[in-house]
């Protein structure tokens, strides 16, 4: 069973919810938490676990081999991303523009652009009790998060069985990285805050998950500030509000130190209990 925790707006509490929910579930059964916000991964700051494995993650980019090249320029013609250019008697590759489609390499008549590995990030796997934590981090300067997100999900799939609950802390927004992170999920939890910004971005997130045909529900964080716009919207649209976490300076302070909230704060414990019960009761989503 795969659950993605997402939100349109950043800073609404995705990581807070992911880390607390996963740690709570792991008290009674095996659980995997995977941080797919590879640009700015934060879950690891809240999970104290032992590093058991790490590996470099690569993307494949073409590398020009001069010796056989006949300078026909086909590589430049077939690249839709301007990542391969023929300049005079040279073929130049711009790795940051390359999407790794292999077209230039495989369509080269002389095999002069073999694909080579280029490191784009690092994956680390941690364990404490029943909780497995998988985190990937993009190298600064690498612009494309999607390939690393994809490889991280594959790693989780390869290493953990169907019966393990898998929680994916997704990146913010509504564009390609979020789509990749939620694509395989059985259920999406959208975290929002009851403010105009929160509501505006929640609507975009709802549009996104609807377009992907995903079952989803909402968790309202910082409940009590702002207004009732989010509640009204969810009511009108028939969207389940699974739980609410109150706006509380103590929560913000505990979070600031990188500590889990539910062991110390009863309102958060109630929320994670509601969410895990909701998940238990609705297992029908899982294929």
């Amino acid at each position, binding site marked *: 069973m795969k659950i993605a925790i997402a939100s349109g707006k950043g800073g609404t509490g995705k990581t807070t919810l992911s880390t607390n929910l996963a740690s709570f579930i792991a008290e009674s059964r095996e659980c995997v938490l995977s941080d797919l916000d590879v640009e700015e991964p934060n879950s690891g700051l809240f999970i104290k676990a032992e590093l058991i494995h790490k590996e470099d993650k690569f993307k494949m980019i073409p590398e020009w081999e001069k010796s056989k090249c006949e300078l026909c320029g086909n590589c430049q013609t077939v690249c839709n991303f301007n990542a391969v250019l023929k300049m005079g008697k040279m073929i130049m590759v711009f790795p940051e523009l390359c999407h790794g489609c292999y077209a230039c390499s495989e369509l080269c008549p002389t095999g002069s652009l073999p694909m080579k590995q280029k490191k784009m990030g690092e994956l680390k796997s941690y364990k404490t009790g029943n909780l497995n934590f998988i985190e990937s981090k993009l190298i600064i300067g690498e612009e494309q998060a999607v390939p690393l997100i994809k490889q991280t999900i594959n790693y989780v799939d390869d290493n953990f069985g169907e019966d393990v609950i898998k929680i994916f802390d997704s990146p913010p927004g*509504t564009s390609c990285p979020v789509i990749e992170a939620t694509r395989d999920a059985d259920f999406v939890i959208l975290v929002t805050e009851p403010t105009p910004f929160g509501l505006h971005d929640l609507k975009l997130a709802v549009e996104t998950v609807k377009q992907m045909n995903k079952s989803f529900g909402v968790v309202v964080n910082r409940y009590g500030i702002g207004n009732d716009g989010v509640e009204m919207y969810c009511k009108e649209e028939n969207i389940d509000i699974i739980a609410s976490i109150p706006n509380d300076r103590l929560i913000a302070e505990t979070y600031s130190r990188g500590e889990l909230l539910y062991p110390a704060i009863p309102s958060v414990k109630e929320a994670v209990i509601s969410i895990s019960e909701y998940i238990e009761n609705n297992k029908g989503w899982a294929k």
Partner: protein
Amino acid sequence: MGKVKEIVVISGKGGTGKTSITASFAYLGGKELIVADCDVDAADMHLLMAPDFGKSEDFYSGELAFIDQDTCIKCGKCQDVCRFDAIPVIDTQYVVDPLGCEGCGYCARVCPVDAITNSEPNVGKSFISGIRTGATMVHARLSIGADNSGKLVAKVKNEAKTLAEKENKMAVLVDGSPGVGCPVVSSLSGASFVVLVTEPTVSGLHDLKRVYELVKKFGIKAGCIINKVDLNTDLSGDIRTFLKEENIILLSEIPYNVKFTEAMTDGKTIVEYDKELGNIISKSWEKIKEIEKLQGKLK
């Protein structure tokens, strides 16, 4: 005529108050500015700026494959070459998953019967609006799941810059994108000054350090605003130390205050809503103007 200055506000981490602060700067700068919302994924600044959506333009970018089922002979070559798993077989037909397709065009090139065509999809909309500060704002809305947000960011920024040059404005003020990937790279390119908005939380500091690594690669001068500064005094100290080490100017420190959210809920910028918080933000803006030698050209 000199190059128009570009002030870009970013944060790495979301929820630090970036947009509320940028909107306040926009209010303070008034007509002297062109405002650009480059957080095209989850653009929120317009909620405080009452834009009139005066001019809008569809944004087309990239390519999207389409398989004509009448021509397709189901050889499966397209699926074989697709590195993005974007050509599944549904009801015995090879179809393109538009959310997975990267638009590389490889499938069309290997199709033996030319059943695959590529079109440039509409991936968003950009707007040029008059806003209630009297300024012009360039903003955009990316379609759901669209790729190329970096390109849309670049378009928003370039339009803002062109307008600023044409109308002889003091500067372009940019609300930047989150993260460290392609949209924020586009937000930063060409910037004269970067304002980093952070908060004293372990995540805030972590994300600040990562995004600053990127800023450093561009060699852009930076200043920092620590929001919610009293939330964790130890971490505020760590942030100050980091700023000192990296020669980042500390622009201001803002206390934790629910008025930040109340102002937003009221549809106002902080400088309009609360005097005390407003003063702190005004001072930061004055500092930025001084550092960047921004001078109003309006009489």
